[in-house]
């Protein structure tokens, strides 16, 4: 009895130890961004014999990002102790809010497209079959596995000839293609968990197959559709590759592209980078919280029982 207790205690200690390491590994980089964004630049750039916590926290860099589009003037960093070699003028940072909004518009459009088209398609695959649906379903799933870089070159040629490069529309269309296969797969699995009886009674009452879908199945599946929408939102919000060759102007830049751009600027303020990163995290973490309530692990199990 006593040895059992000791074993249990050690087991718990090990479990909590490893959990703590995991949580630390997952959160530490994110927390450093938030710390970095409120630390004066001179503190960040100094040799690292200083402690990790913030000395003289400041919201100057956030003020800069939020204030600049509204015409607030910031020319030098008041926290630079020595004569400022670099002026804090990096005009593109002014566009941060606009860029966040762009990302949001594209991602929301992609989510809407996914819920609409994906919802219809997945229903057809789940409830109604037609000869050859296996082939179509497999084709749609596998189309996602080939790397997106292959689409890049021809897609650019198409957009260029249509004159829709540098628009958010071209980005939205291609994100739709790379997110749909996943949505269709997920929703196919999801519809399976909904009892079929209600739709059958709708059919008996004289609904056509499409009406049964539109009036009964679609509203019933709202939770799954929401999850699929959130997934595709995040996939679209995170994509760099397509944005990088489609959008050249700062007005139509999306967040990953902006971050990629910042990462190539060697003399940019770290604090500004941290502030932009910190702002980037907020929408995705909110989405994740919404998604977490709807993500059912047992649903995923179903997908794996093959």
């Amino acid at each position, binding site marked *: 009895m006593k040895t059992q207790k000791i074993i249990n205690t050690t087991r718990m200690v090990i479990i909590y130890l*490893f959990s703590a390491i*995991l949580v630390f590994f997952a*959160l*530490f*980089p*994110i927390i450093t*961004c938030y710390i970095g964004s409120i630390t004066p630049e001179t503190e*960040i750039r100094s*040799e*690292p014999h200083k402690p*990790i916590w913030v000395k003289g926290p400041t919201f100057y860099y956030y003020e800069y990002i939020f204030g600049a589009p509204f015409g607030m003037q910031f020319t030098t960093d008041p926290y630079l102790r020595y004569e400022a070699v670099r002026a804090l003028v990096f005009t593109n940072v002014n566009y941060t809010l606009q860029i966040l909004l762009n990302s949001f518009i594209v991602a929301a459009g992609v989510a809407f497209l996914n819920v609409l*088209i*994906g919802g*219809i*398609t997945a229903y*057809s*695959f789940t409830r*109604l079959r*037609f*000869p050859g649906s296996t082939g*179509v379903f497999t*084709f*749609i799933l*596998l*189309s996602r*596995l*080939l*790397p*997106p*870089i*292959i689409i890049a*070159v*021809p897609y*650019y040629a198409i957009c260029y000839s249509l004159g829709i490069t540098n628009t958010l529309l071209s980005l939205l269309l291609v994100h739709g*293609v790379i997110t*749909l296969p996943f949505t269709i797969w997920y929703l*196919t699995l999801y519809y*399976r968990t909904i009892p079929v009886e209600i739709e059958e009674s709708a059919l008996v009452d004289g609904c056509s*197959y*499409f009406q049964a879908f539109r009036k009964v199945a679609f509203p019933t599946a709202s939770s799954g559709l929401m999850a699929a929408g959130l997934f595709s939102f995040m996939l679209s*919000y*995170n994509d*760099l*590759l397509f944005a990088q*060759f489609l959008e050249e102007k700062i007005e139509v830049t999306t967040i*990953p592209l902006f*971050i*990629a751009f910042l*990462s*190539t600027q060697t003399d940019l303020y*770290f604090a500004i*980078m941290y502030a932009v990163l910190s702002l980037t995290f907020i929408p995705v*973490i909110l989405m*994740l919280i919404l998604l977490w309530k709807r993500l059912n*692990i047992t649903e995923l*199990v179903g*997908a*794996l*029982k*093959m």
Partner: protein
Amino acid sequence: MPIKIRALKPQEKTALLMVLPAFFYIFVFTVYSYSQAFYLAFVKYKLVEPQTIGKFIGLTNFIDVIEATYFKDTIYETFIFTLMCTIVIVTLGIGVSILLNEKFKGVGFVRFIILIPWAIPPTAAGLVWRLMLYRSGWINRFGMMLGIIKEPIGFLGAGRIYQLVYALIAQMWQQLPFVSILLMAAHQLIPKDLLDAARVDGASWIKRLRHVTFPYIRNVIALVAIWEAIVAFTSYDILYTFSGGVWGIITYYAFAEGFSWMNLGHAAALSVIIAIFILIMISIILLIIPPKRIYEYSFVE
């Protein structure tokens, strides 16, 4: 085998009509793009020489790309990176999934927290880890605060292979949650009574893992490993921001050839080379799970 053609039932007609929009949408983009990419690989397509665009030049693009100065190194680095990522991420993923399948207070919280890096844009992940590894970055700062290291380490000044190892940390940070969650779901496939029986029979923890758990999740592990290999092989975003857009693996060069050096023919040739590698990995996936089983399982039984 004679092909039977018959009129579709109303149900099938609706089914077909409902699939068509998505099918055409995806078909037009993928099949057209892939065939176009394949075609471009065999023609001259240099944006700076517009008069020669579209001239058929056979395998010249492939030969040019293979003979390019970066090719040998980048293939080597790509394979090293893919191999490291797959092994490290899958191994750690198995460990994490075992941990998070235990029942303890706060397990839901830990599961949620570890998912956060997965939701964050890969570009951000790359930049965050570069900022972490700077000479005045947070790892040095943290290490010196705890007294583990005396002098700050210049991680980012090390050689390319070291850089790939550091980039692997960023890739792992981003990918580990996904792998762990999938493997965690796989654990639920194991019949409960089988585990209990093994426990009653006095099998040790290691033995249970080896003889009960592993056979059940073996297929899922293989699938996840191939998926991770594909993700690592085509990794672009993380490496781009991690390196500050200066180096990357094969996808980086495919992009650079096309959109920085304006030679779409070379870019297409590199894409075809990438696609061949990926197709090999996909065929392995299809050997593990035949497509018919994926589809049938998605149905109401």
